[in-house]
């Protein structure tokens, strides 16, 4: 038997969680997220500064020599659990995880990349991969699409990482070569855009074969840690459902004393507990560079995506009419959970990846 992954949280990870949670509770609860989303610009620049310059979360994956925290995927996963719980609009998954992991898989010592990584680690700049948000780690890269539709957080990005036939390019979004056209997203807290980049614009930061595998490494890290965001969403939805059904009375009893509802929440609890094991296994496999990482990531995505959706759907239903209102934040969780289930590869796609990795072939 191979050594099992470390599935617990370390003390520094608990401390990190406490710091992020305190900040988000104070400054970015769900009602605040709703107000911002309604304003048309969901991001809170001051919050991002507190998260990145204050707590240093953006640099967790980046080595200290490049201005990062030199921590790893396990810690970044804890941050994502908290961002998921609060459905925080922040370009963390896209910039601090996916784009950062992509750059780290290129020649991170070259001055251009090192400079960019330092800026990302400090939260001074935001970079995103110019790919549709649904792109799975093992799907063929749609290079040369014009425009690229559904690029997550592009409206907030300073730099686009553009995969082309001959390599990976960094393009400033402020340059005249770039057009970013906001789309209306299902998930109000993670904006999507159609992005057009003039061919040939930007600076080549990696040549062809390296570029392809770097992008895949970035997508793999993103997909693996997305499971922790999904865990956070599911956890919040369950807690809210329990709280609400304990408080609200119908038929002269608390709703939460009806067995039909209790069993549904107990079932959700079991799914959340299981999602935690799957998400931790993926984070640990990524952190240790385990050869098992592609399997652990596909497993976590195949499991945690549906759990978050189930939890969010139950949360709406168990709140009754209140759950159907715009004022109650359950819909923010539902929209995030449902989008996340397609982001970085759908559940079905990850199951196919698993089937290939475990040799469970389709009928001939």
């Amino acid at each position: 038997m191979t050594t099992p992954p470390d599935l617990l949280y370390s003390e520094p990870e608990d401390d990190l969680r406490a710091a992020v949670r305190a900040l988000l509770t104070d400054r970015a609860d769900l009602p605040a997220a709703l107000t911002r989303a309604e304003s048309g610009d969901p991001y809170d620049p001051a919050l991002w500064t507190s998260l990145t310059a204050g707590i240093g979360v953006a640099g967790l994956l980046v080595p200290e020599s490049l201005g990062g925290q030199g921590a790893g995927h396990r810690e970044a996963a804890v941050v994502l659990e908290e961002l998921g719980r609060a459905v925080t609009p922040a370009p963390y998954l896209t910039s601090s995880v996916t784009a950062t992991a992509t750059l780290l898989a290129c020649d991170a010592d070259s001055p251009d990349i090192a400079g960019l990584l330092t800026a990302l680690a400090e939260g001074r700049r935001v970079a995103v991969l110019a790919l549709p948000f649904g792109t799975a780690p093992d799907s063929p890269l749609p290079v040369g699409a014009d425009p690229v539709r559904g690029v997550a957080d592009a409206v907030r990005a300073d730099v686009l990482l553009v995969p082309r036939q001959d390599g990976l390019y960094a393009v400033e979004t402020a340059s005249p070569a770039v057009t970013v056209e906001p789309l209306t997203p299902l998930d109000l807290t993670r904006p999507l855009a159609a992005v057009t980049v003039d061919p040939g614009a930007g600076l080549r930061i990696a040549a062809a074969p390296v570029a392809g595998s770097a992008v895949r490494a970035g997508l793999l890290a993103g997909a693996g840690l997305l499971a922790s965001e999904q865990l956070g969403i599911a956890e919040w939805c369950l807690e809210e459902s329990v709280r609400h059904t304990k408080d609200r009375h119908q038929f002269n009893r608390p709703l939460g004393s009806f067995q039909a509802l209790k069993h549904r929440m107990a079932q959700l609890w079991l799914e959340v507990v299981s999602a935690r094991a799957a998400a931790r296994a993926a984070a640990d496999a990524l952190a240790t560079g385990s050869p098992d990482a592609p399997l652990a990531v596909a497993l976590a995505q195949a499991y945690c995506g549906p759990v978050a959706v189930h939890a969010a759907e139950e949360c709406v239903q168990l709140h009754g009419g209140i759950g159907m209102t715009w004022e109650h934040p359950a819909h923010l969780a539902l929209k995030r959970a449902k989008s996340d289930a397609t982001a970085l590869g759908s559940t079905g796609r990850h199951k196919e990846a698993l089937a290939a990795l475990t040799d469970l072939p389709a009928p001939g």
Partner: protein
Amino acid sequence: MTDATELRTRVAELIAAHPPSGTGRDDFLRARFDAGLAWLHYPQGLGGLDAPRSLQSVVDAGLAAAGAPDNDPRRIGIGLGMAAPTILRYGTQEQKERFLRPLWVGDEVWCQLFSEPGAGSDLAALATRAVRDQASGDWIVDGQKVWTSSAHLARWAILIARTDPTLPKHRGITYFLCDMTDPGVEVRPLRQLTGEAEFNEVFLTGVRIPDAHRLGGIGEGWQVARTTLMNERVSIGGARLPREGGMIGAVARTWRERPELRTHELRQRLLTLWVEAEVARLTAERVRQQLVAGQPGPEGSGLKLSFARLNQEISGLEVELLGDEGLLYSDWTMRRPELVDFTGRDAGYRYLRSKGNSIEGGTSEVLLNIVAERVLGLPSEPRDDKDVAWKDLAR
């Protein structure tokens, strides 16, 4: 302070003094117990060294490497998983010294006389009576127990019986250790839907139990029983397995080896169950890591629920996957097996046996209630049996 190095030395000494090749199985197991290497976290003199539970793997690995015999936890599961922790917590020193060693070695098999025809999920409603014989101080037990696994093999039983019918049901129960060879104990096989008889009916007629075999205080049997039940639920579904080590492995192998059986619909179900089985395995691993780190969480309560549902769905899928072969059954002969065999025999047997996984040791419905109330803190349903004397309850 016991550490891994010291333990390796102790293992080496045990092996040197009792070379597994030249020692009988039972003798080796007894020597292992006496060396304190049976269950490390138990006290000195009772098979342990008061050492951290986490170090047990060091001992187990060392002994396995030396080819030493294991005690067969499947055969003696009720004793190991349920009787032992309860005796350790509530037993007198004499009881611990009398019962733990033969139990661990497997010299004495145990069974659990809890369920009754009228008391299953509502176990505290039980009607088996134990009346004190004032002259001798012994207890005289009369009643009927049912679904008693391994009663036909057992030398001892953990037994709960009513000692005061005038109290509310949870307060009038007392816990005993019952000698299954005593006069008045009659065991009749009870055939299961698999065709065999793993469990039994047990009739208790004027069975005399000395007060020295009472475990815990008079009327405190329910608290004692809760220790047993908690240990039962954690011990089901918590085994450490490699990937594809459980039932899913058999189905995956069939899938790989028999392309002619594959259909698209079955594959989608197989992939879903493969994911869930692997996640359940990781969840059990996480529970184990929490225990070792000394931070046990409530997650253990969920393991049995997952285990039962997965076993049922996977074995159901397997019967369908096998097509014409799935229409056959190995053997309907009525037998009284020695082992509870969740994964053995053929797909049809596994499918039928797994139906018990969501009933034995607390049904899945009851476990969901427990999770909802004790873990999530949801309110209990209104009930009217808590303050009424047992004798006045509707039955």
